[in-house]
């Protein structure tokens, strides 16, 4: 059974600081996703990482994937209040091209304090 663990689950940080969210998964996978969820809202796709060593950046967020270590990181640079949200990583452990039977981590609730 595929397990996905995120840490930390809660993160309170000051504006301007840097921090990293970690996502470990338990089985071989070549597709890892990062999503953002605002309270009461749906999931917004942030990054799709498809190969070992993949690195993607968008604004103050940068995601990387190490398939050998079964680890992905989401790095936040110089945090701003607008980044406050819950961040999920998800792994597709299955199931062939075109399927999205994702296993999600429990999420990291990020609060950026002015």
């Amino acid at each position, binding site marked *: 059974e595929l397990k996905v663990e995120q840490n930390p689950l809660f993160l309170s940080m000051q504006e301007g600081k840097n921090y990293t969210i970690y996502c470990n998964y338990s089985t071989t996978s070549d597709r890892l996703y990062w999503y953002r969820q605002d309270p009461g809202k*749906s999931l917004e796709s942030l990054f799709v990482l498809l190969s070992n060593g993949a690195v993607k950046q968008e604004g103050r967020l940068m995601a990387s994937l190490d398939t050998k270590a079964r680890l992905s990181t989401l790095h936040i640079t110089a945090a701003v209040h607008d980044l406050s949200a819950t961040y999920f990583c998800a792994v597709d452990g299955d199931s062939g*091209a*075109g*399927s*999205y*039977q994702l296993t999600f981590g*429990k999420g990291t609730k990020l609060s950026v304090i002015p």
Partner: protein
Amino acid sequence: EAGVTQSPTHLIKTRGQQATLRCSPISGHTSVYWYQQALGLGLQFLLWYDEGEERNRGNFPPRFSGRQFPNYSSELNVNALELEDSALYLCASSRRGQDLHFGNGTRLTVT
């Protein structure tokens, strides 16, 4: 382009009743996925429909069922509701091999 739409937004049922949740995928998307986001349990894969057929289901009892219609919209039915079924149910759609798009969800409350 209209996104994935789900209805109703909120649904309140009593234990033992049946709930029906609906999802319209993005135009051109043939795959529909259902996920449950329950407090304390996180997001869990429920069902996958593609081209009108159920392709796979997650670790949920048979009282969770659904179908996909010829226009690719989908329905999720939950029979014999239990208190633990209270959750946000998210529908997502995709084309084969393309990105996944989520709807805003249906919040089901079982009392």
